[in-house]
C-alpha cells in the first residue's frame, strides 16, 4: 500500500523522565536513577513500536509527538535513536509534524540542530511564567534567563515552530505579573502559546501547600484567563482551543487530533490511545512496562484500561471535545456522523447559554465563548448524555 492511501494517525511517544519533579506535577514522570535505566526504557519503547508494526501497517502517521516528562532530558543520542526507530517501524508521511517537548536548560544549539536534521520541526517549551518568584513557587529548575537562552538557541537551530507553555493561578501571581509574562512572550514571538490553569492535584507538593501559599482567587483567575484571550488575539494569536492559541497556520496538528476524535496511538508507560475504535492506556508501572516488553513470555498485561467506545459514548465524546474548540460544533457534520439532529437533541438546552453569553450559534455552528469555555464542565455536564439517550436511531459516528 502506498503511504498516500494509508489512514492518518497521530503517534505519541512518552518519555517519563525529568531532571526534577515540579511541585504541581501529577503526570507519570520520575527522575531516573542512572543512564542505564533511560537506555533500557528507550529500548523497551522501541520494542513496543515494533510490536505495532503489523497492527498499524494500514496507517501512516502524519504527526509524531514526543512528550513527557522532559524528552530533552534524556540527551540527543537517545532521542535520535528513538526517532530512527519511529521511521523504521512506521511510514511517517513526508511533511509530518514532529514535536518534541523541551524544558529550558535541557537544550543547546547543537542538540537542537541534530534534532532538526533528524526531522523535528516543532518544539514545545515550558516557560510557565516569566516571573522568577513564581517559577520558584512551582519548583521549576529554570529561571526566565534559562528559558530565553534556550528559546534563542532553538531559533539559531532554525526551528521555525515553537510553542511556549504558560500557566496562570500560580502562587504569588497577580494580574500585573501575568500581563508582564504575556508581554514578554509575545515579544519573543513564538508561533504557538498554550495557557493552562494550574490544577492542584492531590498528592502533589503544591496540593499540600494549598492553604499556606497565596493563590490567586477564582475571580482573579477568570480575569487572567479572559485578559489573556484578548491580549493574545490582539497580538496575532487566535484562540483555537480552551488552552491553545496560535498564529495563522500554526495550530498543533497533533493535539487537534484529540479534539477532532481522530485516531492516535500513544506508546510508552502510561500513554493513552484512541486507536481502531478503542480508548486504552498502558500501565503506569515503569518496571512492569519494561519487563513486559523485554520478556514477551512474561504475560504481563501492558494495557491498563481498554474500552470499546459505543456509538452513544462517541456522540458524547464528540460534543465534549468539539466544544473545547473555538471552531465549535457544526450541526451538518454532526448529522452526517451520527444521523441525528443536534438541534433536536440539545438545541433547547443550549438556549440559556446562548442568551447568557456562554455560547454562540451562527451558520449552523454552536461554539462556546471564552467565558463559556471557562465553565465548560458545568455546561457539558448539564447538556451531555453519554449513555442515556433513550431510544434513538443513530449512526456510529465513525468517519
Amino acid at each position: 500500500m502506498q503511504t498516500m492511501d494509508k489512514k492518518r494517525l497521530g503517534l505519541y511517544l512518552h518519555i517519563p523522565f525529568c531532571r526534577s519533579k515540579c511541585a504541581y506535577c501529577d503526570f507519570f514522570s520520575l527522575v531516573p536513577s542512572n543512564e542505564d535505566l533511560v537506555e533500557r526504557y528507550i529500548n523497551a519503547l522501541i520494542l513496543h513500536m515494533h510490536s505495532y508494526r503489523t497492527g498499524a501497517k494500514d496507517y501512516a502517521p502524519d504527526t509524531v509527538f514526543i512528550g513527557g516528562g522532559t524528552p530533552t532530558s534524556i540527551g540527543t543520542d537517545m532521542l535520535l535513536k528513538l526517532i530512527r526507530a519511529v521511521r523504521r517501524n512506521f511510514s511517517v508521511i513526508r511533511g509530518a509534524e514532529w514535536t518534541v517537548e523541551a524544558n529550558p536548560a535541557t537544550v543547546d544549539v547543537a542538540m537542537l540542530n541534530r534534532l532538526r536534521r533528524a526531522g523535528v520541526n516543532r518544539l514545545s517549551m515550558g516557560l510557565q511564567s516569566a516571573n522568577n518568584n513564581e517559577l520558584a513557587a512551582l519548583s521549576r529548575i529554570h529561571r526566565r534567563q534559562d528559558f530565553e537562552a534556550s528559546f534563542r538557541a532553538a531559533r539559531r537551530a532554525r526551528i521555525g515552530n515553537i510553542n511556549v507553555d504558560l500557566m496562570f493561578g500560580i502562587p504569588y501571581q497577580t494580574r500585573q505579573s501575568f500581563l508582564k509574562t504575556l508581554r514578554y512572550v509575545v515579544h519573543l514571538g513564538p508561533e504557538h502559546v498554550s495557557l493552562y490553569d494550574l490544577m492542584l492535584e492531590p498528592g502533589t507538593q503544591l496540593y499540600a501547600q494549598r492553604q499556606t501559599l497565596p493563590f490567586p482567587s477564582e475571580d482573579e483567575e477568570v480575569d487572567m484567563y479572559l485578559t489573556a484571550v484578548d491580549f493574545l488575539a490582539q497580538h496575532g494569536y487566535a484562540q483555537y482551543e480552551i488552552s491553545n492559541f496560535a498564529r495563522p497556520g500554526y495550530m498543533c496538528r497533533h493535539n487537534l487530533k484529540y479534539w477532532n476524535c481522530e485516531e492516535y496511538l500513544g506508546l510508552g508507560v502510561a500513554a493513552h490511545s484512541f486507536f481502531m475504535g478503542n480508548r486504552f492506556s498502558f500501565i503506569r508501572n515503569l518496571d512492569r512496562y519494561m519487563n513486559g516488553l523485554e520478556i514477551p513470555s512474561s504475560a504481563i498485561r501492558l494495557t491498563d484500561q481498554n474500552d470499546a467506545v459505543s456509538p452513544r459514548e462517541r456522540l458524547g465524546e464528540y460534543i465534549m471535545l468539539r466544544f473545547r474548540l473555538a471552531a465549535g460544533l457544526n450541526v451538518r457534520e454532526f448529522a452526517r456522523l451520527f444521523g441525528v439532529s443536534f438541534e433536536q437533541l440539545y438545541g433547547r438546552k443550549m438556549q440559556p447559554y446562548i442568551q447568557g453569553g456562554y455560547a454562540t450559534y451562527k451558520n449552523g455552528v454552536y461554539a462556546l465563548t471564552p467565558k463559556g469555555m471557562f465553565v465548560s464542565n458545568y455546561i457539558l455536564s448539564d447538556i451531555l448524555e453519554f449513555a442515556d439517550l433513550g431510544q434513538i436511531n443513530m449512526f456510529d459516528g465513525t468517519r
Partner: protein
Amino acid sequence: MAGERRKHIRNFSIIAHIDHGKSTLADRILEFSNTVQQRDMEEQLLDNMDLERERGITIKARAVRISYSAPDGETYELNLIDTPGHVDFNYEVSRSLNACEGALLVVDATQGIQAQTLANAYLAVDAGLEIVPVINKIDLASADPDRVIREIEDVIGIPAEGCPRISAKTGLNIPDVMEAILRDIPAPQGDENAPLRCLIFDSVYNSYLGVVVYVRVKDGTVRAGDRIRLMSTGAEFDVVEVGYMDPFGLKPLDVLSAGDVGYITASIKTVSDTRVGDTITSAANGADTPLPGFKSVLPMVYAGIYPADGARYGETKDALEKLQLNDAALVFEPETSAALGFGFRCGFLGLLHMEIIEERLEREFNLDLITTAPSVIYEVTLHDGTVVRVDNPSNYPAPETIEFAAEPIVAANIITPTEYVGNIMDLCQDRRGTFIDMKYIDDGRAELHYKLPLNEIIYDFFDTMKSRTKGYASLDYELAGYEPSELVKLDFLLNGEIVDALTFIVHKDKAYPRARKIAEKLKDNIPRQLFEIPIQAAIGSKIIARETVKALRKDVLAKCYGGDITRKKKLLEKQKEGKKKMRQLGSVQVSPEAFMAVLRLDDES
C-alpha cells in the same frame, strides 16, 4: 374450674427507661422458664423488627405466654406484655399496662431513676398495677443498688427494700424475679359469665390472617365462630380463631376466658378498625359500657414526605399504605409542593415515630425520600371566628386575616444531674419554657418541670439538652393543650421565588436568628450556578435575612494531557450524575442532600 385456673395466671409488663435492660430481662425470663431453649435465643427475642433490634427500642407491643413450673410444684401461666419505651408511644404503653395486674419496674443500678422510669411508673400507678421494682446491672462496678432503692422509695413512693437485685446480662438472681412475680403480682379478676369485654392493646396486620388483635379478656369468653363488635365504631366481625402467642408464633385455643391474654383473628382488613384501647364485646348480648380509657391517638408532628425521584410517587403511596396497615397512628394525605412535586403530608406521634417511618420507607421499600422540616399543628382563629388547624406551614393564613394563633404546649419533665440544672434552665428559657417547679431526687439529681411549646421541642431540643448535660439528662413530656402565641410565617426565597417546602412557622422572637441560620445553611449547600443566587428570608414582604451564592465562573479541565480523554469523561459523567438528582427550586437547582442538610437540626441555634 375457670376460676381455679385463673389463680395460676400472672399478667405483667416490664417498664424501664431506655437502655436500662428491659428487653434483656425479658429474654432471661423466657430462657429461665424454658419457654425458649438457650440455643434458640436471639438477643432481644421479643423485638421482631430489625429496626427495633438495631435501635434497642421496642416499637410495637408484643405479648408472650410463658408456662412456668415454680419451685412450689405448681405450673403458672405468665403473660408478659412488652411495651414501647418512648414518649411518642405513651398511649400504647398505657393500654398495655391496662391489660396487666402488675409491672416489673427495671432500674439501672448505675444510673438510677430517669425521666421515662418516672413517666412509666406513674402510668403503671394510674393503671392500678402492683409495681415490682427490679434493680438491674448490679454486676457493673459503678452500681449503687442501695442508693437506687432509696430513690425508688423516696421519689415513686413504693417499697423497694428486698426487691430483686439482678444482672439481666449475666442471668444473676433471675429466680428472685420469678418469685417476686408469683408472690407480688395478683392473679387476674373477672367474671367469665358476664358479657364479653376484651381490651385491645395491640394489633398487627398479617397478610394471611388479616389483622391479629392482641387482647386481654376482662370478662366473659370468646371462641371461634362468635360474632363480635368493636365498641367505639360498632363494626362487627366473625371470629375466625382465638389463641395465645409464644415466641415462635400464634397457638390456637378453643376459648379465651376472663383473665386471659391472647389473640383474636376475624378477617379484619386494617388495623385502623381495631384501635388500641378499644373494647371488643359480643354482637349479641354485648356489654353496656366499654372499658375505660379509650382515646383515638392523634398525630402531634407533621412533615411532608416526597420521593427524591418524582416518578416513584406511586411506590411511595403503596409503601405508606402498607406501613399504615400496621400503624394506626400514621396518617397521610397527598400534597403538592411547587418545589418538591407530588408527595404526602404525614402525621406522626412524635419525632421518633417520624424517624422510624422514614427509615422503614427507605429500608424496607428502598425509597429515597426528601422530608420537610417537621411541624406541629397550629390553631389559628380568624377575624370571622373560624378556627383553622394548620399542619403545613405553607398553608398558614395571611397575617391580616388572623385574630389570634395558638400552639401546642407540653408538660415536660426533665431529670438531670444537679450540676447541669443551670444549663437546663438556660435551655428551657431559651426555648420559651415556663418554669413550674424543681425537686431534688437525691443529692446528685434534680427533677424539673416546665411548660414548653412543642414546636421548640421538635426543633432540636433533645439533642441540645443531651449535649449540654454530657448526655445525662432525660426528658419526658405529654401534650398539655394549646396556648395563644405570637407566631409568624417565615418564607425563604431563592432568586426571588418562595420555596414552599422551606416555609415554617416560628415565634416572632425566634424569627431573626432562625432566619439567619437557615439562610447561611442554604448558602453553604446550594451549588454555585452560572448566575448569582440571592437567598432571602422573609416575613410577609419584609426581608429579615439575606445571603448570596456567588456565580460560578470557573469549572474547567484545561489540560487534556497526551490524549487522556477518559479522565475528562469520567469527571463529566460524575458531575452529570449529580445534576440528574437536582431538584429545580424555582430557577435554582438544589440537590436533595443539600435540601436535607438545610433542614437538619443541629447544635445551637
